[in-house]
């Protein structure tokens, strides 16, 4: 009996403690970013020198920081939109139709995921140079679309696979043309998958340093700016931008959860 009680005790604290440690491990870097965005830093932002709001009041003070931030946002937005649209269509083609070379097409879509990023970046560079394309925003966007598509296809295919094909037949049976059936039935059911794919694309593109570093020429993205700045000391304003992005993501998630909660509440009340 005593043995049993002892065991139950262990299980009672084991999970919360491990979970707590995991979260601590995950969130420590972010907490550092947040705290050091308020650091009254000197040349470097590595040691605490006192609290200030001036970094938040004027985050664009370091030359090039905000330009790089806006560049990254632009690249990520365009790459996400294009990759999501193309990737959704590819996912549909691969999942719904049986055609010659479907197997090889499937494999080809996965290849960019498996190739080392450095190799991808370098070979894209040589391709752009051989074609005589001017390096800049266009080449950066093109290369980001390329690797984002793979992630989109993988994510959306999984979602399509869970859709009952009978639903589209039911829509056709109820006088919906193929395009109406897609927009009224298939697409709404795919939205969670498409949203997940788009968020993933945005995050990957926004984060990318290696491929951009090869293919952006004089066009500078935020990760590139940070990399260069790191040699001289990253300014505290970079922490402000990092924190801003983090808080933005968190508030988005919270907003979605709150919206869902209210919608469920109102649905239940309607019933």
């Amino acid at each position, binding site marked *: 009996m005593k043995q049993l009680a002892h065991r139950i005790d262990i299980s009672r604290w084991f999970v919360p403690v491990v979970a707590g440690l995991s979260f601590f491990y995950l969130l420590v870097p972010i907490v550092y970013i947040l705290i050091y965005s308020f650091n009254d830093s000197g040349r470097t932002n590595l040691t605490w020198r006192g609290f200030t709001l001036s970094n938040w009041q004027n985050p664009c003070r370091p030359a090039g920081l905000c330009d790089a931030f806006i560049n990254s946002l632009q690249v990520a937005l365009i790459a996400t939109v294009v990759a999501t649209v193309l990737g959704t269509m590819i996912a549909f083609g691969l999942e719904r139709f049986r055609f010659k070379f479907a197997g090889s097409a499937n494999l080809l879509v996965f290849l960019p995921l498996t190739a080392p990023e450095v190799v991808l970046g370098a070979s894209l560079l040589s391709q752009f140079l051989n074609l005589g394309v001017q390096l800049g925003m266009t080449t950066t966007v093109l290369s980001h679309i390329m690797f984002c598509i793979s992630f989109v296809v993988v994510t959306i295919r999984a979602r399509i696979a869970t859709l009952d094909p*009978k*639903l589209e037949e039911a829509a056709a*049976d109820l006088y*919906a043309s193929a395009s109406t059936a897609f927009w009224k039935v298939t697409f709404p059911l795919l939205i969670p998958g498409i949203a997940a794919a788009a968020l993933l694309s945005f995050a990957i593109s926004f984060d990318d340093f290696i491929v951009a570093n090869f293919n952006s020429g004089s066009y500078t993205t935020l990760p590139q700016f940070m990399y260069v700045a790191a040699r001289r000391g990253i300014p505290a304003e970079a922490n402000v931008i990092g924190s801003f992005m983090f808080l933005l993501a968190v508030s988005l998630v919270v907003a979605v959860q709150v919206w869902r909660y209210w919608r469920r509440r109102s649905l239940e009340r309607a019933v």
Partner: protein
Amino acid sequence: MAASGKDLVLEGITKRFGDYTAVDDLSLHVPAGRFFALLGPSGCGKSTTLRMIAGLEHPTSGRVYIGDEDVTATKAHQREVNTVFQSYALFPHLSILENVAFGLKRKKVPDAVEQAKAALELVELAHLAQRKPAQLSGGQQQRVALARAVVNRPHVLLLDEPLGALDMKLRRQMQTELKTIQDEVGVTFIHVTHDQEEAMTMADTVAVMNAGRIEQIGPPDELYDLPATAFVANFLGKSNLFEATVTESNGDWLSLSFAGTTTGLAASRAVQTTGTIVAGIRPEKIIAAPAGQPPASAGSGWAKVPGGRVTSVSYTGVSTEYEIAVQGLGEFTVFAQNLHSTGFTEGDQVDLWWEESNLFGLAGDADTEAGIEEV
């Protein structure tokens, strides 16, 4: 409410998937407003036939007519035909009301929502209009699927094993309800099922399908009383089939000889009237009597098969099912109503008696095992 049902005609429909022929030169005429059942085992092509009527599949050859219109080349969304799917296929992201209004909205009917509400009244689910399909029980989802189809007043309504997922009690209830709704809306119903009891109790006309072909079409009682093939004789209820030789014919009646005994058979009830044929009789139309004692009802026009031995007895309450081995003929199944508390026990010697007018005759090359469901 005006009846919207129209005739459905299939003309020489064939559907092949690669080398496999799912439906083989099938022709069918269902008059407007009928409750028609396509009955057959799984894989007999009945669902494929239904999908070709809906336009979800297109025939390899042959034509489909709804009313006078040839719809063979049209797509599903262009046909005034609606389907109640086996899995219901309700749209999970739409409310019950939106599901039911879906078809009307596509047709741009101005009072789509009002009509959808009325259809939900019809299936007694108006109070759940704002719910999502996942919040409903199986039986409720089934009724929504029915309302979603019926609300469009299609010319033909297709039911693809719609009661298959329901439990027995709910099934009986839905059978009656479906029948009532069909009477009310006057739509032509085509009901696909593998459940012979369901087909018999609901449909005015049943087509028995096997291996891509229709074996026989007719009202349930006619199919049961006078099956034209061994498949129908075995698939629709049970039958005792045995080989016999036609020894004499006087026009209206044939004399059959089998295993050392004889019986008469009405020529009008025989598919084949000369040579060796397969004769059949339903188990409840045989009377087993103790050896040497004719049953009270027997008289002229009765045949007697002596030398039976009871090999198995299963008591079901209202009746008892006997397996009786007859020398040279094999096993006979006999259903006896339990009018008295005494029955036979295993090993009893009995004679089998039947009224000759109940016998039916099939072609001599009929496979007597066809259509027996493997359990």
